């Protein structure tokens, strides 16, 4: 099982969210949109205590809250809109991908996606490391970006493209897996069309690219009320991924190197 416990950044987010009795709409929407009630894998992970950010289910709620509300949709700067990332991460069928469900699964790595399953619904498995207290991946901003990343694997499958990562090539850090980075300028993607792509000239996204762009947007384009611990976390996770998880390292950094 996972190592339960409440990290500081999860604490900062969970304190913002009204409890289920005060805001049943959100909790029921989150469970439905992310299919947290699709199978029994979440039962022993805090489904009966969705307000508890010590447990995986409550930590998922924190990350879904960030996906749904944290971005300011600053059209001048932001890579993509909140709706783009939310539709990517959400399990329901959309322009981005077919339907899938999210399963809690005690395994290594942050998550994986199973696509093209025979006579079964596709799914994303969310693993313990994104919930393990004091682990390197246990952070609501990072967890939200993982949901975007895994949703993009379903996009790849829906559009008919390979979804395997690269290992040990190009600028990838030793031992790290990653993707190609498909260059695009901020203005080249309008809001709410992240699902679209073009092959000539190439305009495309890989999972780590979408994930890093979400990190950048959360770090720098969050709403004013978002806790500073969240935006800082998005920045350092994003910069690590930009530096280590691309075959051709993207030519930008997230944020300024100052304390606050």
């Amino acid at each position, binding site marked *: 099982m996972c190592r339960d416990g409440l*990290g500081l950044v999860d604490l900062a987010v969970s304190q913002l969210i009204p409890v289920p009795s005060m805001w049943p709409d*959100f909790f029921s929407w989150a469970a439905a949109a992310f299919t947290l009630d699709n199978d029994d894998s979440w039962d022993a992970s805090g489904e009966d205590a969705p307000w508890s950010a010590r447990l995986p289910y409550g930590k998922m709620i924190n990350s879904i809250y960030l996906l749904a*509300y944290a971005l300011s949709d600053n059209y001048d700067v932001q890579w993509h809109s909140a709706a783009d990332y939310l539709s990517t991460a959400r399990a329901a069928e959309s322009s981005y991908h077919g339907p899938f469900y999210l399963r809690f699964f005690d395994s290594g790595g942050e998550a994986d996606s199973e696509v093209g399953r025979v006579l079964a619904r596709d799914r994303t498995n969310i693993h313990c490391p994104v919930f393990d207290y004091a682990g390197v991946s246990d952070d609501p901003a990072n967890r939200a970006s993982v949901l975007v990343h895994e949703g993009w694997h379903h996009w790849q499958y829906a559009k008919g493209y390979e979804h395997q990562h690269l290992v040990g090539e190009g600028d990838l850090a030793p031992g790290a897996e990653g993707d190609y980075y498909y260059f695009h300028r901020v203005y080249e993607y309008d809001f709410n069309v992240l699902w679209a792509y073009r092959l000539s000239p190439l305009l495309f996204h890989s999972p780590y690219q979408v994930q890093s762009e979400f990190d950048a947007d959360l770090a720098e384009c969050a709403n*004013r009320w978002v806790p500073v611990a969240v935006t800082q976390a998005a920045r350092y996770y994003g910069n690590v991924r930009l530096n280590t998880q691309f075959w051709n390292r993207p030519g930008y950094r997230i944020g300024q190197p*100052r304390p606050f």
Partner: protein
Amino acid sequence: MRAYGSEQTPPPMRRIDWVASPTLPLQPPRSRRELDGFLQALATIPVGDVPAIRVMFAGFEARDAIAEVFREGMAQRPCGDLGQFMLLLSAVGELACPRSIAPLHELIWTADEALLVDDPCGSDRETSCCVFPPRGMIQARAAEMFAWIAAGREDDRLLRVVAEHPSVVTRLAAADAFLFAHKDAGAARERVLAVARPGDASAIGVPRFTRDCRRAEFDAALEAGRCPDHPPRPQEIALPARTRRDGECC
């Protein structure tokens, strides 16, 4: 729990306001025991109040005593909760006590194995895809805070990080912090490129994506530094026609 009718649109946003705006200024921690509470309050401050955070730190008295409390927290091994430790580093940087330079420098050169908490299941867990590579992340933030406090007075030690640190994440963070400390001057860029590893050079002096950047300027800088190695055309997989969703229209 399916009371809400639509999976497509989340309900209108709500939040608990009293948490969103803790009363500033916070009381600075006077002991290690008070540090956790201070960081918890600091963590919840909205990003829109960052200017107030800076004013708060600038107004702290007994700064050496506060810095000593911060340094005690920074000496913890392993670091424990990563989010808390990273926020502590930000606090150390914002307080900008010169005596914090030495412990930050030591932290930069500390191995990941000493800093990170072990996976509770160790190698028993099946290795799977989509793994986060944390190596050098804490040291990178330490390098940024080192450069911030040093403000150009420790260039040799910072350039040594750029040249010799085993983590690319830390090397590139140190290079960016060096440039930031020197206002991104051309001469500073030449100095840092002179010591940087060849494989790192293309990622040094790149534009920063910030909330204040102008889109046209950022895009132009992005274009100018574009990696010459273009990725291959995405590889198609065989799919039944009925399952393919056409998205090629951009």
